[in-house]
């Protein structure tokens, strides 16, 4: 592997508080130098003029569907979609068939990801066997196999006693439990946010409190046990406020929000638009603004896609029957720039922080920053170019996006993982 010089770009590396014009020299897949001006000396030159050079993005929350539902997505197509979206590291949620509740499935995911070699894939193991919420998995085995966290995502851990024990036991490993916060008794049968739109359409609603009730419980249990809870895909303003207060008290909690919850409200459901059916549901403008504020004041640590690919025929169904989920890897950056950076709510540096170093730290990974000696995972972004979302051109098998036809700002120009270009 030769030397690569990325020349003339605006380097943004929030972890290093770097934001300015730098050249980056890559040798043997690792970052060798970051200097204002580096001479090529035989290196292959990538002209980065006019682009932002940022750490390869990190997604804490990706559904790759393999093993089990390879018609929706595979590790290969999901990896390609990640690279297309500027991500070099993704974390695969365990709700596969069979679920990642033992080493065999975790190994399979890591090996398949390595074989296709596009982005780094880290498995998230499940908290309970079969994600049934009844018996704990062998945490130690799962972490030894390389899981970066555990989660029953898709299902919440509803049993308070079991959640307490899980948080307590997981402390040995210093890794978080990722909770899909939803009280199943309050959300039962619901398909969208409970409010004016659900009332108009006659659809069963899911109140915001289905989330905040469980967030409150988990914060209490994290406080009791000293364990680390990471709350996935926040959707309600009440949850943000609970976490804000808990962080002030020193509770070990981190959390994420998705681009779609930051960009859209339940109005996106319109007249039974199943592409806007997602769990947790899109909520009110007030909730959306509270999520933005949570990102701004640091209550919300990171942005995660909750990339949830589904087939077209499954989404071409009535709203009750259509599966929950949005294919998000390829629109995440553009949606965030459009919603957060362009209106001046976050700076580019703050956005990149939420999309790289912060999720990397939560995952306990070395990536997400551009320090000398680190793996050369980086993404080049044209920050002003615009593009129109055409889901038929996604690398993901999942074309289920409510952003189809939207014009977004910022284009991923190149993605390098371990010094190798993976974006085209």
């Amino acid at each position, binding site marked *: 592997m030769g030397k690569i010089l990325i020349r003339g770009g605006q380097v943004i590396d929030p972890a290093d508080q770097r934001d300015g014009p730098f050249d980056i020299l890559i040798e043997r897949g690792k970052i060798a130098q970051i200097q204002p001006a580096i001479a090529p000396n035989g290196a292959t030159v990538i002209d980065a003029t006019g682009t932002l050079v940022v750490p390869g993005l990190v997604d804490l929350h990706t559904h790759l569907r393999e093993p089990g539902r390879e018609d929706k997505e595979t590790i290969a197509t999901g990896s390609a979609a990640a690279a297309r979206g500027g991500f070099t590291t993704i974390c695969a949620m365990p709700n596969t068939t069979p679920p990642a509740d033992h080493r065999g499935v975790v190994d399979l995911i890591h090996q398949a990801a390595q074989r296709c070699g596009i982005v780094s894939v880290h498995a998230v193991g499940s908290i309970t066997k079969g994600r049934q919420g009844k018996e704990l998995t062998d945490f130690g085995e799962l972490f030894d196999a390389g899981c970066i966290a555990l989660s029953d995502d898709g299902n919440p851990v509803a049993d308070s006693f079991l959640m307490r024990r899980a948080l307590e036991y997981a402390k040995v490993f210093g890794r978080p439990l990722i909770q899909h916060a939803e009280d199943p008794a309050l959300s039962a049968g619901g398909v969208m946010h409970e*409010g004016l739109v659900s009332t*108009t*359409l*006659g*659809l069963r*609603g899911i109140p915001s409190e289905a989330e905040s009730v469980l967030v409150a419980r988990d914060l209490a249990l994290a406080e009791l046990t000293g364990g680390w809870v990471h709350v996935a895909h926040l959707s309600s303003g009440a949850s943000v406020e609970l976490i804000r207060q808990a962080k002030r008290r020193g509770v070990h909690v981190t959390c994420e929000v998705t681009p779609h919850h930051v960009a859209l409200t339940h109005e996106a459901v319109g007249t039974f638009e199943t592409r806007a059916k997602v769990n947790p549901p899109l909520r009110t403008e007030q909730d959306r603004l509270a999520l933005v504020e949570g990102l701004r004041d640091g209550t919300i640590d990171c942005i995660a896609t909750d990339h949830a690919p589904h087939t077209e025929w499954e989404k071409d*169904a*009535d709203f009750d029957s259509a599966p929950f989920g949005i294919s998000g890897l390829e629109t995440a950056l553009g949606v965030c720039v459009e919603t957060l950076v362009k209106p001046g709510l976050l700076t580019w540096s703050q956005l990149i922080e939420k999309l790289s170093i912060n999720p990397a730290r939560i995952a306990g990974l070395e990536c997400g920053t551009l320090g000398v000696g680190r793996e050369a995972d980086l993404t080049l972004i044209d920050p002003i170019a615009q593009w129109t979302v055409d889901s038929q051109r996604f690398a993901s098998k999942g074309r289920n996006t409510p952003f189809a036809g939207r014009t977004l700002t910022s284009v991923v120009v190149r993605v390098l993982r371990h010094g190798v270009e993976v974006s085209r």
Partner: protein
Amino acid sequence: MAFATTDLTTQTARWTRKDLLGLRELSAEEIRGILQTAGSFREISLRPIKKVPVLRGKTVVNLFFEASTRTRTSFELAAKRLSADIVNIAPQHSSLSKGETVLDTVRNLEALKVDILVIRHAAAGVPHLIAQHATSSVINAGDGAHEHPTQALLDLFTIQEKKGRIEGLNVSIIGDIAHSRVARSNIWGLTKLGAHVTVCGPPTLIPPQIERLGHVAGGAGVAVTHDLSSAIHGADVLMLLRIQHERQEAMLIPSLREFRLRYGITRERLEAAKPDILIMHPGPVNRGVELDSSVADGPFSVILDQVTNGLAVRMAVLYLVSGAPKVDEEEG
């Protein structure tokens, strides 16, 4: 045959839609147009030979994913009286029970060159989904808790017939508003035609922000009360809804007995009502729950008129969405 062809032509001129999916998207003008068309069809069912050739050569499919007797029969008779060919597909006969998607079922029917699909489904939005993908006309015969436009149209027709107007009337809808497609369609239809709508029921059966539904310029769409006597007081029309037994299991009401005690319409409760109040119910009635027999069969009840008018309304809707030419052209 004496048939008001000229009336029909003027009405169709106003109707430009392929489908009838709900009353929410219709203008007051379109709703009035349907009611007028229904008026001109009403007389056909009173003739010795109850048939006109308006839809001759058209194929109507009653695609009922959810069991229904009265609505299906009403549509079937309406189609037959207009000389359409009609096919009934019931849940136990449909390949949906074999795991076929709704759209695949519809694609197969369309391959058989049908003209109008009448859809009933337990899930809200199915007629919309089908209408988006089908070239045939779609009529919503009730989708989940969303809309039941022909029921509301026949209710409007009945009120118009009995009261001579809809504008300015006080209409109270009582019972399980949350799960009622009839309530939603009536809220849209009544408010668009200028009635004042109050919904009444226990808080568990009133969906959030229902007061913002309906079409009223510069004010709240509908009023909400949990007190039955205030819903009856001053009302010109009481619309009762069927209370489902499952609501008890879902802890929405403690018991049907408790519901009757607080929200059931009895003769005693009606003593405080206007002397010319109308009692309506989309059926089937739970006698002794939402409505006592003495009221259901009493002088204020127009429940069977609703059924009769349903036929005329459905004939009108079939006719309008079919875009059929006027009768004399058809007959040459």
